[in-house]
């Protein structure tokens, strides 16, 4: 049996040697090379498209920044001057809120519009409470880095004649 196995192995080895000449025909390689060239062309097209897209985006960004800088350079100081000259803010003291006792490493002031009724909770009445009973007022809220509000003050903008 072992001898038969050996002979079978020999026969298979001879077959393997004989098969060494087996290969795909040239037309297969030619067709596949053509496919590779198509892939290369597609890749070049994709790269070109990507370059055009990036260039367009950069151009748009530069143009936007230039336009913003030009418009703000021209009109900015004028508006600021007008604002500074004509509007004044009157603020209340800060009133502690529910989380005021929670320690905070840093605080930020966030300006919000709140309902005028919220002033009443702190025993305050807006100056124009009688003429404008509803609507909103500005409030500066002190917020910690943990997102909890510590205190609030109310802001009233007063227009002044130049």
């Amino acid at each position, binding site marked *: 049996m072992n001898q038969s196995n050996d002979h*079978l*192995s020999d026969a298979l080895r001879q077959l393997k040697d004989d098969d060494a000449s087996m290969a*795909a025909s040239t037309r*297969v*390689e030619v067709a*596949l090379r053509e*496919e*590779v060239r198509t892939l290369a062309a597609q890749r070049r097209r994709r790269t070109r498209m990507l370059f055009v897209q990036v260039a367009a985006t950069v151009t748009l960004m530069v143009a936007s920044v230039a336009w913003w800088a030009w418009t703000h350079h021209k009109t900015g100081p004028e508006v600021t001057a007008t604002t500074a000259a004509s509007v004044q803010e009157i603020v209340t003291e800060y009133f502690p809120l529910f989380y005021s006792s929670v320690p905070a490493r840093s605080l930020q002031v966030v300006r919000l519009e709140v309902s005028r009724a919220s002033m009443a909770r702190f025993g305050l009445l807006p100056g124009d409470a009688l003429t404008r009973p509803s609507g909103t007022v500005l409030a500066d809220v002190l917020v910690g880095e943990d997102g909890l509000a510590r205190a609030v003050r109310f802001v009233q903008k007063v227009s002044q004649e130049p």
Partner: protein
Amino acid sequence: MGEMDDARWLEGARNGDEQAFSRLFAAHQRQVFRYAAYMGGVEAADDVVQDTFLAVLRQRGRRDQPTGSVVSYLIGIARHVVMKRHERTAGWTLVEDDLERSESREPSVLDRLLVAESVESVRAAVLTLPPVYREAIVLCELGEFDYAGAAAVMQCPIGTVRSRLSRARALLAEKLMVALRATAGERP
């Protein structure tokens, strides 16, 4: 030539590098062709090789990267192409039957046959094996695959590869012996 080269050539070919493709094709087309010729018929082997490499070139993305060797990956795709072309899935996935291991009662006769038989007779016998057994012979005896590599291609445990190969060899011996008897009977 190593796995690193194979992987680099594969990546290059997919990116349209003709030289990388040439190297990849030259290194592995014979194995793919041989597998295709035995498993799908020699007349379809060219088409199988072409479809296999086309599929490889057109596949992109992480899930299309070979997890084992590139040659296993190629043969795995060729296997899929052959199965798809011939729609013989049932034959390929047949459950191991209860074929008896063929023990030659006439080793001397078989020996004479195997020595005398032409390579063509052995090839013809291989081609008549059921696909699962033929595949084991093609990968492990005629190809360069070890059991682990063949198991990866055949998508089965290594033990199954061993068992299929053993049965394949037994069947092959049996077929060759039948051929010998037939030849001996014809002789005056």
